[in-house]
């Protein structure tokens, strides 16, 4: 078990004890929610994990880095950004996927852009967003998020 995993578990356990002291009934309710969401997300987690295995096993590293690696340039970043904007997968799953891309030769920039557009922009949920918040706000939010995702990616590529 690595230190990060230990830290996360200790943190969650600490929160749990604190919550239990504050309100027992609510904490039990929270644990039921946790158990349900665990089984709810498990199939998706397994799908992505198998997909990562296949991706790293079958697609040669130089192929991946040609599309989304350092030498792919701005075009590669743009492709990843669009992919992230259109894909509709739970954000929790995006991190192992991003890590596998990083491991197989993708650049920090494209991975950071991918995570950011994947989580912030939802082309699939855009009609709902327009209905709730109005056209102006929804389009501005998604459009400017696309730009800042690329800025975040480029800055991260420079500093990391």
């Amino acid at each position, binding site marked *: 078990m690595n230190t990060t995993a230990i830290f996360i578990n200790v943190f969650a356990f600490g929160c749990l004890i604190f919550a239990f002291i504050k309100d027992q009934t609510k904490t039990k*309710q929270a644990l039921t929610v946790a158990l349900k969401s665990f089984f709810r997300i498990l199939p998706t987690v397994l799908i992505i*994990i198998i997909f990562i295995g296949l991706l790293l096993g079958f697609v040669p590293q130089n192929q991946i880095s040609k599309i989304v690696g350092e030498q792919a340039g701005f075009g590669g970043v743009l492709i990843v950004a669009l992919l992230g904007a259109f894909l509709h997968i739970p954000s929790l799953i995006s991190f192992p996927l991003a890590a596998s891309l990083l491991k197989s030769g993708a650049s920090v920039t494209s991975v950071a852009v991918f995570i950011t557009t994947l989580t912030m922009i939802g082309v699939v949920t855009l009609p709902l967003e327009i209905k709730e918040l109005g056209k102006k*706000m929804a389009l501005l939010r998604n459009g400017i998020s696309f730009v800042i995702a690329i800025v975040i990616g480029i800055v991260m590529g420079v500093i990391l």
Partner: protein
Amino acid sequence: MKDNVKEKETQRKGMKRDAIILGVTLIITIALLSIFPDKQEAVITTSWNFFIEMILILPAVMVLMGLFSVFVPKEMVVKYLGKAAGIRAVFLGILMGSLPTGPLYVAFPMASALLKKGAKISCIIAFLSAWACIKIPQEMVELQFLGPRFMAARLVLTIVLVVIMGILIERLIEWSDKKQILGGEEDASI
């Protein structure tokens, strides 16, 4: 009540769909691995390592999500953000957005309620963006898979840019609303 039943129905449908996709993925994987036996080891080791990394933190992440969902109810978030003002509102929006759980589309009705309550647009944008990409349980998974440097850098950059974006969108919307009102008056005078 009706919403609850509907929610359960869509959840059951979603689970069924996920189980089917998982089955298909498994079948394709087994087929591929029996056609290319030399890839077996690499694929299985990679998947297994990722599985271990995930299963070590997933229960803890789910506990955090469960706690936030029970202890930070939606009504509370809307109440706090509805009356916040100034630049404080933007940061409160980020904080409040990083606590609850659920996909982004759950936050749209909340944002709509905030809009109707007269909350600042910069605050609503900050809230939605934080909800989307810097939720605390989500950051834990990022920490595990991408490391502290990556996580911290993305977190800081995102907060800075989201604050700027919130203020920019607020200005743009105010500016275009003003133009519309002025335009309307001109029309009326003609």
